[in-house]
């Protein structure tokens, strides 16, 4: 129990536990971990609830039927687990803007929430195009030695560094403590 009250674990311990969870997911649920499918199913549910006649005509939703599903339970579980963990270590704090954003883009709440939405839009679109997110494609793909995971890892890094340099106006990638 004292291990739960620690603010952080060693990165290697966290990585090994993560690998055991991936194995547990394969063994218990006979499918790899994956999170972005939950949001696609949520989109399917939104369309089904508000425009049922239109949703039946979209061919993409045939693979994402509007039923509450394993990945949605996983995402809800992540939220609950993170809440329990942050409460037990005393780091839970409601906040509207992250500190690093404040230092590089200013303290405007509406600006942060707008750009968070735009970034989320790109992430949702890209994850559907690449058949998975960082959890379902990168981690689960690489550990099964699928070429998809390696290609996704490299292109994600390229796109991320390009967007960071353009969006945050970083002249050089300066090395900084903290």
């Amino acid at each position, binding site marked *: 129990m004292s291990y739960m009250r620690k603010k952080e674990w060693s990165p290697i311990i966290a990585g090994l536990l993560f690998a055991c969870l991936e194995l547990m997911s394969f063994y218990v649920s006979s499918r790899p971990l994956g999170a972005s499918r939950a949001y696609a199913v949520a989109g399917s549910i939104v369309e089904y609830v508000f425009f049922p006649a239109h949703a039946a005509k979209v061919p993409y939703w045939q693979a994402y039927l509007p039923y509450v599903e394993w990945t949605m339970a996983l995402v809800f579980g992540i939220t609950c687990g993170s809440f329990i963990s942050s409460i037990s270590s005393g780091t839970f704090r409601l906040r509207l803007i992250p500190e690093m954003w404040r230092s590089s883009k200013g303290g405007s709440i509406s600006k942060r929430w707008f750009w968070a939405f735009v970034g989320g839009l790109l992430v949702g679109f890209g994850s559907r195009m690449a*058949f998975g997110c960082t959890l379902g494609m990168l981690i689960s793909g690489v550990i099964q030695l699928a070429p998809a995971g390696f290609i996704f890892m490299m292109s994600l890094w390229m796109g991320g560094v390009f967007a960071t340099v353009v969006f945050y106006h970083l002249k050089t990638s300066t090395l900084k403590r903290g």
Partner: protein
Amino acid sequence: MHDILIRLRDTFDPSTIGYFFGPDSLYGGFIIGAFLGIVLQKGKMCKYGCVSGMFRLWDFTFFRVGTPLLMAGMILIYFFRDAGAINLYLPHTVVLAQLVGGIIFGAGLAISGYCPAIAAGALGEGALDSLPTMAGFVAGSIAYAELFDGSRIDKLFGYTGLGRVSFPDIFLVFNHWFFILAFVVMCAFFLMGITFYDEFLRASFAIIGKAARIVKK
């Protein structure tokens, strides 16, 4: 209004909570997710500064967690598959789709700072700006389904598809442990280098930089 509530109730399938094992069980997903949330939060990964700092080369948490994760995960998965306990579930490899989709995904990740699993963890930790990000994920999925799926570019991407393959299938190597060994050795050196840099060299660089500034004055 009444129709909307009835359809909302229809989205829940009661047969998914009857058991624990299997790919449809909601209990299995919830319990694995709860453990995953604890690991993500204790590993200090549910933070905007962690994801954005990775691309700025200020924060190396993801490299230091991800490398042992990939090494150990690869060994565990293939060991248990050879023992016959689990089956692999390979993702589709479509080269152009993963290239272009990965670049779009990375750009969005750098701007918003939350990937789909991290956003859920950040919400549990109290970062409320993950809510518009999650709304963005749903909106992006709808935009893909309505606008992009089945278009000409999508069909063009489809020509580069290889199916559900892994590296041992492509290179016709009959023993996958060669790949795993090469990858693990590479990862071990990377992990040693990045840990050494993060723990020791960065502090010494900072001290040298401060000393140089004092000398200049």
